[in-house]
């Protein structure tokens, strides 16, 4: 098979190992996600807060700026609470980015029924989903733990030596908090996107999946006078988890503190449901029962 001869030629060259096919799915997924101008726009938007925080860190560590603003100003203290705010802002921006990217990753394959062709190649359904997961997880990493870690390193570099060593827990807490959040978000968004063919509707469904149960949870808590309704409230649960990971004061605790184990179990359960949804949907062939 060659362009000028127009005849068929069998392939006898080397073949990549099987695990590389997952990387192929991830690479094409990443490319698909970032080929949109809206993705680029959201990414730039997500980098604006870290730039502002970078300026704050600079001012907090600059004697001249501290003297001008006032040395005791609470806005110029870089501590657990500061990084909690950074983590929260970046995490919710990650939700916005995920709600746009995930439907792109799944939607094009589903809209044109590409799964039979994709899965007829040497890649399993698990490999396919894992590849998409890596693409989304990687994209969300660029707006969560990567800029947050840069801020932390910058603060450690700018401040006197003991600060870095004394606050290393913050770095691990932020990393763990961000990884838990984007892993949860990636699985949830892929699952919802796999069930909704229309990308705009899928974006709306992702927001609904995060915020509608929060409202239901609030009603349950109010009616039954219990704190357990907050287990349906993803923003509330995540805020509590992040506070504990960073060792920040619990300013949401007055509503009802949830056990960390319960939060983790709830997140794991949501992930399991999402995996079940993916397992049901990502198939080369649908079997009609009866």
């Amino acid at each position, binding site marked *: 098979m060659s362009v000028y001869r127009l005849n068929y030629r069998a392939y006898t060259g080397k073949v990549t190992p*099987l695990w590389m096919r997952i990387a192929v799915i991830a690479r094409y997924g990443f490319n698909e996600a970032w080929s949109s101008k809206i993705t680029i726009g959201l990414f730039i938007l997500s980098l604006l807060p870290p730039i502002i925080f970078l300026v704050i860190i600079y001012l907090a560590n600059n004697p001249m700026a501290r003297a001008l603003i006032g040395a005791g100003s609470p806005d110029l203290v870089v501590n657990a609470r500061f990084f909690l705010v950074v983590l929260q802002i970046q995490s919710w921006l990650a939700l916005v980015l995920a709600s746009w990217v995930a439907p792109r990753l799944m939607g094009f394959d589903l*809209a*044109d*029924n590409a799964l039979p062709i994709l899965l*007829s190649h040497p890649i399993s359904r698990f490999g396919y989903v894992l590849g998409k997961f890596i693409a989304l997880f990687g994209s969300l990493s660029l707006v969560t733990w990567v800029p947050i870690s840069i801020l932390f390193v910058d603060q450690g570099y700018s401040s006197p030596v003991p600060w870095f060593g004394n606050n290393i827990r913050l770095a691990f807490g932020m990393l763990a908090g961000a990884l838990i959040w984007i892993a949860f978000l990636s699985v949830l968004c892929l699952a919802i996107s796999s069930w909704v063919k229309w990308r705009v509707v899928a974006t709306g469904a992702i927001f609904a999946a995060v915020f509608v149960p929060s409202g239901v949870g609030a009603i349950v808590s109010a009616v039954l006078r219990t704190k357990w309704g907050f287990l349906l409230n993803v923003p509330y649960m995540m805020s509590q988890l992040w506070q504990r990971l960073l060792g920040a004061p619990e300013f949401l605790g007055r509503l009802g503190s949830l056990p960390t184990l319960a939060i983790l179990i709830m997140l794991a359960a949501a992930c399991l449901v999402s995996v079940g949804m993916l397992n049901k949907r990502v198939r080369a062939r649908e079997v009609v029962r009866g």
Partner: protein
Amino acid sequence: MGIIELNGLEVQLGGRTVLDGLTGELQGRAIGLLGPNGAGKSTLINTLLGFHLPTRGTVRVFGLDAHRDRAEIRGRVGYMPENDSFIGNMSGVRFVRYMAELAGLPPGMALERAHEALFYVGLGEVRYRKVNTYSLGMKQLIKLAQALAHGPRLLILDEPTNGLDPMARQRMIQLIGEIRKEGSVRLLISSHLLRDIDEVCDEVLILKGGRIAALCNIEAERRSNRSFIELETVGATERFSTSVRALGCECASFPGGRIKLVLPEHVEARDLYIIAAEQGVQIRRMNQRRDSLEDIFLRAMGNTPTGLPTAPNEIERPAHVGL
């Protein structure tokens, strides 16, 4: 060893037995898969690709178990599905390259082969257009291109001429014929169109109700079924029959001057006219046909074609015909 070995294969889907005890060995260069709707053709293809787990029995492709070794089999197989199946947002060349990389080709080689495959199927000029802007015929061709790009050993084509206009169909059949001639690729073609199978296949598997209704080599079948001729004559019919028998034909006479005969290889219809002219017999009507794939199919389905001569074992045989 055959390319595909079926050993009591049974597949149940949704509580219904779709394939029921298929046993056989497919070894043709181009194998046709025929059967009415719901016969189990697509299920068999999906089972070969490892999409369905056999309930009982086994199926082997290139000697590998279709379910256990599905990754290895899929690497050696190119699959062109029946329905639309592509990523419309990608350009043609990017889509084919993606599929080739998934099949295991390194990125550079995949790109090279994608270009080649697209030129080969005749989509070279439109390879940078997005796939969702392609016509139906182009979409069929790009499915073929992606199935070919990684150089498979077995090409599974599910209804390759579906929805194509006559020109596009001819082009597709020609391409399949060329691939077959090249010799390095075996073909499994599922189609409703007997003509397509007839033109390119040398072996046919006919399914009916999830069971094998026929599995035969088309060429061998044709060779074994000699030419049948039905004549309507006026004149000395008995003498004519005797003369024809002397040529080596198997012949049976019926009232009203009707004669049915089987021509051996060395006798042609022209010889009959010569004998008739010599004996003053008028040949009013002559029906001549070879056993076609349609006959094989209809026999497999349990319906003999009406008004046409049938296979030797089904022809009415008067006592004086020595077969």
